[in-house]
C-alpha cells in the first residue's frame, strides 16, 4: 500500500478563472500539488513553471534507432545473409530500402515513446490511480494542495477568494 495523502482541493467551472487562480496561488507562494483539467489549457504550463517534456528527445533516439535497424539490417540480409536479385537490381539497392527504413523509424519512435511514457508515469496493467473527483474528466477544473505542504487555513481562504465553486478535503 502506497503512502496516503491528505489533500484539499477546489473546483472551478471555467478555465479562465482557473488560470487566474493558479496565478494568485503562485504569487502567494502556495505550493500546488497538481492541477487537473479535462483538456489542455494554453498558457497553464508557463504559469505552473513546468519544464518542457523531454519525451521528444527519447522519440528522436528511438527513431534514429529504427532507421539504423532497418537500414543496417536490410543491408546485411540482402548482401551477406541471403542475397536475392529482385528485378535485376543490385543486392544493395538503397532506394528500395527507403520506404521500409521510414516505416521502422515511425514504428520504433511511436512504440518507444508510448512505452517510455507509461514507464515514467508508473502506468501499466493493473495500476489503479486515485481519482480526486470524477468530474475533472468532464467539466470541472481542479487545483489540489497537499495538506502536509501548506497552511490549510491559508488555502481555504485562497479557494474562497478566487471563486472556487466547491471546496473538498480527501485522503488519497
Amino acid at each position, binding site marked *: 500500500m502506497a503512502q496516503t495523502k491528505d489533500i484539499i482541493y477546489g473546483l472551478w467551472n471555467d478555465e479562465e478563472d482557473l488560470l487566474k487562480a493558479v496565478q494568485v496561488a503562485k504569487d502567494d507562494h502556495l505550493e500546488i500539488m497538481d492541477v487537473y483539467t479535462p483538456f489542455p489549457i494554453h*498558457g497553464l504550463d508557463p504559469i505552473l513553471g513546468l519544464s*518542457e517534456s523531454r519525451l521528444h528527445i527519447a522519440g528522436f533516439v528511438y527513431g534514429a534507432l529504427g532507421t539504423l535497424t532497418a537500414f543496417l539490417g536490410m543491408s546485411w540480409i540482402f548482401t551477406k545473409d541471403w542475397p536475392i536479385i529482385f*528485378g535485376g*537490381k543490385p543486392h544493395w539497392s538503397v*532506394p*528500395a530500402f527507403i520506404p521500409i527504413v521510414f516505416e521502422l523509424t515511425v514504428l520504433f519512435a511511436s512504440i518507444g515513446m508510448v512505452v517510455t511514457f507509461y514507464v515514467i508515469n508508473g502506468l501499466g496493467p493493473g495500476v489503479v490511480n486515485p481519482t480526486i473527483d470524477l468530474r475533472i474528466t468532464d467539466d470541472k477544473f481542479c487545483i489540489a494542495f497537499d495538506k502536509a505542504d501548506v497552511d490549510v487555513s491559508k488555502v481555504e481562504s485562497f479557494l474562497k477568494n478566487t471563486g472556487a465553486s466547491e471546496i473538498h478535503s480527501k485522503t488519497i
Partner: protein
Amino acid sequence: MTYSFTGKNKTWLTAGMVIGLLCMVLTWFGDDDLHTRFWSNFLHNSVFFTGIALMAGFFMTASITAWAGWYVVFKRVWESISLFLVVGIPLMLIIGIGVYLHWNHLYHWSDQSILDPNDPEKFDPILYGKSSFLNTTWYIGGTLVLGLIWIFLLNKIRSLSLAEDAEGSEGFKKHYGVRKYAAIFLPFAGFGSAAMVWQWIMSVDAHWYSTLFAWYCGASWFVSMICLTILLLMYLKSKGYYQNVTTEHLHDLGKFLFAFSIFWTYLWFSQYMLIWYANVGEETIYFKERVTNYPALFYMNLIINFVAPFFILMRNDTKRKFGSLGFTAGLVLFGHWLDFFLMLKPGILHTAHAVAGHGAHSDGADHSHGTHAADGAAHGAESAAHGGGEMAAHASTFEMGFSMPGFLELGTFIGFLCLFIFFVLHMLSKAPLVGANDPYLEESIHHHT
C-alpha cells in the same frame, strides 16, 4: 496601419531590378545563336515566381474554404503575393509568344519540322502523338485563359476583402462573397496549375512525362511561397509593422515549411523510386541525365531542401527563433530555385543541341526508329555522343549557365526577386495591413499554438 513604401526601399529594389536587367542583357549578347541561356533564365525565373503567386492564392483560398482563422492577421501579405500573377502571367505570355514566333527554342515540340509524317528522316512519332496538347495554341491559350480566370477570382477576393474593411462585417455578407470566390478558385488553381506545369515546365523534356510531376513541382512552389511569406513578415516586423503577428504565427509558418519540405521530398522520392524500380529507358533518361551530368546540383537539391530544413526545424524552439527560421527560409527558397533550375535546364540544353544540330547522328537514330524504348535509348546515346563530340573541343560537357548557375543566373534571380518584392510591397502599401472586420481576425490575434 498601412505600410508606407519608402523611397529608399524603392531605390534599392529598382537597383536590384537593374542588376537583373543588366545580367539578362549580358546573357543575351554572350549567348548562342538561339539565345538559349537568356530564354531559359527568363523561363526559369518567370515560372518560379508566377508559381509562388499562384500557390499563395491557392493556400489562401484553401484556408478560407477550410474556415481557418490563424493566418487572417497577415492575410494581406498573401493577397498581395497572389496578385503577382498580374505580372507573372504576362511574363509567361511573352515566352509563349516567343515559342510561337520561334524567338526561342526552349521546347522540342515547337519544332514544326519533326511533325511531318511524310518526312521519315526528321519525323518524331512521340512528339507527333503529343502534338494535340503540346502546341502553341494550348501553351498561349492555356496561359491566357487560366491566367485571366486566376487573376479575376483573386482580384475579386481582394476587392471584397477591402470592401469588408470599409463597410464592416454586417451579416458577414462580404465574407460569404470571399468564401464563394475562394471555392471557385480552388479547382481552377488545382487542376489548372497541373495543366500549366505540364506545358510550362515538364514539356522541356518533351519525350518524357511523369504523372507525379505536377504535384512535385507544385510542392516546390508551395515551400518557396511559405519561405517568402516568412521572410516578408520578418522584414515587416523588423520595420515596426505587424506587431500583432507573433512568434505563434511564425511558428505555424515554420511548421508548414517543415512539413511541406518533407512532402516535397516524399513526392521527389516517389517519382525517383518508381522510375528507378521500373527501369524503363524512356523514363529513366530524366534521372540518368541529371545524375550523370548534374551530380552536384542533384544531391545538393536533396540536402538543401530536405536534410537542412528537416534537421534545423525539427525542434520546437528553432521554429520560434527568428535566426534559425529566417536562415532556413532563405536557404530553402534558394534551394527550390535550384530545384527549378534542375527541372528546366537539362531538357532545354538537349533541345538546343538537337535544334542546333549537335548530336545530329543520334538524333537521326531517334527519329527513324521512333519506338518508345528506342527513344529512351537514343536519348541516352545522344547525351553520350554529345559528350564524346564535345570532348575534343572542350574536354568536358560543362556549360556555364546550364551545368550550374553562373553569376548571370544569380543576377537574373536577384532582378526577378526584386521585381516580385517591389510588386508585393506596392500592393501592401495600398491597403491597411490588417484587414479590419474579418470575422476571424480576433481568433487570429489570439492565436496560440
